[in-house]
């Protein structure tokens, strides 16, 4: 009897035209889960995907009830899925959060204006208030103008430095308690590797923290720290989420860095490798005697800075004085004392995939 039943069970999925989902064992499997290679159905995928993020949020106490949280929203897949999942989890599990969308308008015609349209649609779709801060308002320059002045070299340095500060300023305007960004597991694994390759021990020690900047004005957190990029794409695809997928026009041809390529290759032979890299990053013991940069505030704008002036002010000063090279590379700038964080710009280009400095938190 039993044998017959088992045979039937084994034969069933073939009849149905595919295997059964190995979680619910009812519906037909629709996808192979990138993280585990399990064949599961769509509904179960949504559930495990959302549940894992919920667990990460709970275990790491990312949010407290009543907090105001800004979601850094670029209109791309990561932030769109983050907005979607966070608003859903907030409702489902009664986090009691006030969620906001926060976007930065770099002033890039043909790229950011279009992606901001996506974010504006998201504002309506998810019912989350949106705040847009622009480089033009904050710094008096759009990226278009900056590129016109300095050309296509080093423009990503300006953009990255300005964005980091713009997000903090926008978050302050929204009076939020925390900023959630869409960095995914692939991004973090890539950052771990890059910091090893660059010899940046200080960043290596903090790049895997799920919450950063707790001593700063507005802490940031990464709810997608353990979420695979592929699964985010899958989620967006199956849920037909409205997101913007064009590359920045100033960082063209979707140049994939060595490190990103390497991670994708690793994922192909061992999906777990991405999590393993993050785990290694968490377990690295960094000696306490390793010198860490001291944090102070910028004398000019009051933003956190390890130097006299913050990076954004140095770059801005250069732009306004017609010396755009100021603060770029190894040339001597306003901060004559030994500085860090700038000289990597050359090496970065070839090994890093995202040139826009989105990882430099």
């Amino acid at each position, binding site marked *: 009897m039993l044998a017959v039943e088992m045979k039937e069970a084994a034969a069933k999925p073939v009849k149905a035209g595919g295997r059964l989902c190995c979680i619910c064992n009812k519906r037909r499997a629709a996808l192979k889960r990138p993280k585990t290679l399990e064949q599961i159905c769509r509904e179960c995928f949504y559930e495990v995907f959302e549940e894992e993020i919920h667990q990460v949020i709970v275990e790491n106490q990312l949010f407290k009830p009543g907090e105001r949280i800004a979601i850094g929203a670029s209109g791309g897949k990561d932030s769109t899925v983050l907005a979607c999942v966070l608003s859903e989890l907030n409702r489902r599990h009664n986090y009691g959060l006030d969620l906001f969308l926060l976007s930065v308008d770099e002033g890039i015609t043909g790229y950011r204006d279009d992606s901001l349209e996506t974010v504006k649609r998201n504002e309506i779709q998810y019912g989350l208030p949106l705040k847009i801060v622009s480089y033009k308002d904050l710094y008096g320059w759009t990226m278009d103008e900056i590129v016109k002045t300095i050309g296509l070299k080093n423009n990503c340095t300006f953009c990255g430095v300005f964005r980091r500060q713009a997000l903090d300023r926008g978050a302050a305007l929204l009076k939020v308690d925390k900023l959630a960004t869409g960095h995914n597991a692939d991004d973090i694994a890539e950052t771990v*590797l890059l910091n090893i*390759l660059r*010899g940046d021990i200080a*960043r290596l020690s903090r790049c895997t923290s799920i919450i950063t900047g707790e001593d700063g004005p507005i802490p940031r957190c990464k709810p997608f720290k353990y979420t695979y990029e592929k699964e985010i794409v899958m989620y967006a695809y199956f849920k037909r989420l409205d997101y913007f997928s064009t590359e920045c026009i100033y960082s063209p041809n979707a140049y994939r860095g060595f490190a990103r390529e390497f991670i994708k*290759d690793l994922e192909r032979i061992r999906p777990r490798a991405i999590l393993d890299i993050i785990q290694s990053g968490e*377990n690295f013991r960094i000696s306490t*005697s*390793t010198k860490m940069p001291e944090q102070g505030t910028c004398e000019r704008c009051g933003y956190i800075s390890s130097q006299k002036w913050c990076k954004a002010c140095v770059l801005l000063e250069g732009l306004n004085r017609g010396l755009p090279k100021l603060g770029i590379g190894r040339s001597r700038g306003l901060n004559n004392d030994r500085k860090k964080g700038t000289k990597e710009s050359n090496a970065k280009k070839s090994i890093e995939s995202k040139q826009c400095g989105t990882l430099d938190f």
Partner: protein
Amino acid sequence: MACNASSCQSNCYRDEEQAREEAVDSSTNPVADDNNQNQNVCVKCKSNEPMSATGGDDGRFCADCFRSNLYGKFRLSVTSYAMISPTDNVLVAFSGGTSSRVALQFVHEMQNKSQKNFDASRDRSLPVFGVGVAFIDESSIVPVPSHEIDKAIQEIRLLVSNLAPPRKELHVVPIENICSSNSSDGRDRLKSLLDVVSDATGKEDLLLHLRMLSLQKIASENGYNRLVLGSCTSRIACHVISATVKGQGYSLPADMQYVDARWETPVVLPLRDCLAQELNILCQLDGLKTVELLKGSCAGINGLVSSFVTLLQEENPSRECTIVRTAGKLTPFHFNRIPENNDSNLLSATRRRQKRYNLKPNESISSESFCPICNSPLNKSDLLRLSNLGSCQTSSESFGAACCSSCRFQILPNDPSSMENFYTLLPQPLIARAKHSSYGNLSLLREQIQDCLVSDSEDES
């Protein structure tokens, strides 16, 4: 070679160690301005023609200066970390490749020099350290025709005997000897052991651990107290990346320091600061004979990592150094130095000679428990699992629980019956090591009272 400041892209903070490296480099790597005017002489001695043919940084040296620079790095590591002292008996692991060939050559030169000093000195107070050579024959796993392996071993014998005086003993040991003293039985056991491991990378790594076990066995059976490996910067850089990828971030610093004394015979890496490229050049230059056996190219993660690192190195010639230096800043373990020898027999002259740059004890991590397979120190989450061992019934289960998470994933079989099989095939020294570890005590106690315990399965039946 440590990157000189002008080409260093990394945000490294200089610490003492680096300052020291630079002190060496500045003597060998003069400032670029100096050599601009006279391009056609060696940047160091300023008289000979540089070996421009090789290109790159090395091409700026003449052959003699290149050689002495490389030997200098070796000697600095040996003296800084007290790797070899006059009373030692040193076993050099020789694979036939260029790195271990250079290691053997340099150890030989060092021994030769101290022999000359010994002969010349009147009181003959400083003895000459002994040197032996070990070759692990892996032909039972890598399919090599038997006449080829015989030929290779002949060549190695010739090569080692040509290095005398002083005479160096050569130990050629088949890897399967670690599984059983009977060679054909050992071969079968080793083959079936490797067959149980399904992951290609796991298989490769297990073999690596067995190789180390074999070397340790040779060392302890023949009275050696140091094991010299030819691991160069390039090799270590690959290990740093692959250990990171395998989730071994906690134990990584243990593997890549100059000294690793967690083994019965401490392991030393005197070529840690030499690039593979430099070692290759030296072999060509001096006609150092290498014995390349058919080595299966790396599969899986290890192969991917090594091609990735090669790519990065091509893009930036100081990349491998940067990787090793970054990982070198991770806090090492207490066993990453040669234990202090307070023996009064040790002459003060010797002690003075050893420029120990040892770690401050409070800076290193002390760890008691090690993975029985890879011998890497276990981290907190591994230990947590280990402390919940009470529920484990069989010795194979408790063995599995004592392994690090990386070995559990890539080496241990998933289902219990293969695990049982795997456990029975494991070499004795490995099982013995597991018994030594903290879990061993527990399971040993358990074994003693086993007959009095009522197991769950008995209950049910």
